């Protein structure tokens, strides 16, 4: 296996608040990386940095053959990024698909239209061809019967699965999940995790910010515990979750497993 995603010395502040201090890790192709940690620890900012939805202050992100050194990404005199830099970020973005906590589906498009929007409008795929593949993807997430429904006609779990199909439609190298089940009713969580499990089994490279420890234990190849903008502990789930070494990891897991 080869390393697909490399993150080196990522740092990011919002005003005075340093959200990411110095984050480095790697992810092999075909593996699942789960990022856990208390709220406010910087997990989501880290994930969004991989997709350039946030622009880190420093650090290097490599996905496949695309490397971005964020120290060189600086706005021009009038607050806008120069064209070459925007193109570089777009190239990085194209390497990944993103699944959001609140799905962010386009409400004015049907499930199928949501899935094929990127391929048709951005990649210029023929509609007929994209439709065939879009239906396959929807079938893949168990929604072939709902292809022509609008998002508001679907349950939260179904919406999130459309979101997954949309993320896969761009043929990404890696799929990023930002707490995909946190906004769902508990009985709908299983559907979404089930789909994610089967994607992992198919060999998709995935980076997942999550609070689902059981999912992490069963599916993850590596777990990163992040707190205060630093990777406190990392390794296979059998170590980080089942046998944590660092006191902060232990405290976090205790709170998560015994909330009351």
């Amino acid at each position: 296996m080869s390393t697909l995603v490399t993150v080196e010395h990522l740092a990011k502040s919002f005003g005075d608040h340093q959200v990411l201090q110095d984050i480095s890790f790697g992810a092999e192709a075909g593996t699942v990386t789960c990022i856990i940690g208390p709220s406010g620890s910087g997990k989501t900012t880290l994930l969004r940095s991989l997709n350039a939805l946030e622009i880190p202050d420093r650090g290097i992100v490599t996905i496949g053959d695309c490397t971005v050194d964020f120290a060189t990404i600086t706005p021009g005199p009038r607050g806008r990024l120069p064209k070459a830099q925007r193109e570089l970020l777009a190239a990085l973005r194209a390497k990944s698909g993103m699944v959001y906590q609140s799905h962010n589906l386009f409400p004015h498009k049907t499930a199928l239209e949501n899935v094929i929007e990127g391929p048709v409008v951005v990649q210029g795929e023929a509609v007929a061809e994209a439709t065939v593949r879009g239906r396959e993807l929807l079938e893949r997430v168990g929604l072939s019967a709902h292809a022509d429904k609008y998002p508001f006609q679907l349950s939260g779990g179904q919406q999130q699965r459309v979101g997954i199909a949309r993320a896969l439609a761009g043929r990404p190298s890696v799929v990023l999940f930002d707490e995909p089940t946190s906004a769902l009713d508990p009985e709908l969580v299983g559907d979404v995790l089930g789909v994610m499990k089967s994607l992992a089994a198919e060999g998709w490279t995935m980076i997942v910010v999550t609070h689902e420890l059981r999912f992490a234990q069963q599916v993850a190849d590596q777990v990163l515990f992040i707190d205060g903008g630093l990777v406190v502990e990392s390794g296979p789930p059998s170590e980080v979750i089942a046998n944590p070494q660092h006191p902060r990891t232990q405290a976090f897991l205790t709170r998560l497993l015994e909330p009351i």
Partner: protein
Amino acid sequence: MKRTVVAALTAILALVMVAAPATAYDKSSPAAGLPPVLKVGTEGVYSPFSYHDPSGKLTGFDIDVMNAIGKKLGVQVQYVETPWDSMFAALGAQRFDVVANEVTFNDERNGLYDLSDPYVETTGVVVVADDNSTIKSLADLKGKKTAENLTSNWSEVAKGAGATIVGVDGMTEALANLRQGRVDALVNDKLAIQNYLATTKNPGVKVVAQTDDVSRSVLAARKGSGYLPQLNSAIAALKADGTLTSIYDKYFTAKVAAPTTWELVRNNAWPMLRATITNTIPLTIISFAIGLVIALVVGLARMSSQPVVTGLARLYISVIRGTPLLVQLFIIFYALPQLGIKINPFPAAIIAFSLNVGGYAAEIIRSAVQSLPRGQWEAASTIGMNYATTLRRVILPQAARTAVPPLSNTLISLVKDTSLASTILVVELLRQAQIAAAPTFQFFAMYGVAALYYWVICLALSAVQSRTETRLNRFVAA
């Protein structure tokens, strides 16, 4: 209120003309003579001097006199109908060459304009309601309310007698105000009042006094026009050959039968509908379409990350929303010619209305776009869309849903705002109604028909609005 604004504007425009003279006016040197097509400004709603007969043809005492003068001098006469209060602003802006509208000679006017020899002489009369027995002379007007055209000579006479002036659009409105008891009296031209009493079944008003001074009606041209020698010789010739007398008898001696309300409605329903179809509706549709394009550009500029762009957009919106539409119309139509930019009435109205819609709709579009969750922009960016594609495919289709109700409001307001185009010489629905009502004093009937037409247009637009809303709401839970 509207009249006050118009009067103030006219004053401002007059100042502008004085302040920035030279360029436009001095073109016509004293020996230039009359142009082959003489453009003549006239009210078109001042019966019996300048009005439309039941067939819609412009006629009246001043029109007949002017036609005779044109014939005598061998020039073609073309009329430009203009509300009295903007008559001299329009003359200054070279919308026409001569005013033929019972312009009364006075020294102040004589200093500002070329005034011809008189073609008719008359006095002013004091008119009150039939049941009024307290006002018997001009002096009795002290402390009373009189209805007058603010820029007319009679307004000065009444003010001189100590009356409080209520500004109105013309004599017909002044008489209506008097009959409805809103004012105590009016001072107006004897000939016009005679004609009114002769043609109206139950006038409800009476003449109680004459003013001392004889007022002489003259033609007015821009100072230094060089038209006076020819105009004066023609007037002298018409006096000598009896033409003026026979025109006078036609309007002020003969009894004219006034049409009934029903005849009036029947005669004018089609001309008013035609004005609606050829002016009101095109004005609305074209201005709204152009306005939306402006609004989109300005609304997006308003959200730009570049301070200069945002600042310009803010300034535009602020100016448009912070000034009356009527002022914007007047600036484009009457003030721009001072800078050498002369735009015809219809395109001038389109420009003013488009800019106005643009300012209001820009804020609607901005708020609709900003009401969308950030996640929509992010999701679009994640699947690789650039700014323009995101707007076109994701943001605007959703913003449309939020924007349609307030935009429909703007559109429906616009339909009625187009009536303001009447002040810059566009014969749209309201102007056509004024033309129809003027010779007969049947305001209720004609304005009623106009109101009905406006209402029907707005009903149709409301229907289109609900259909559009239904279509755009298909993707949200009921």
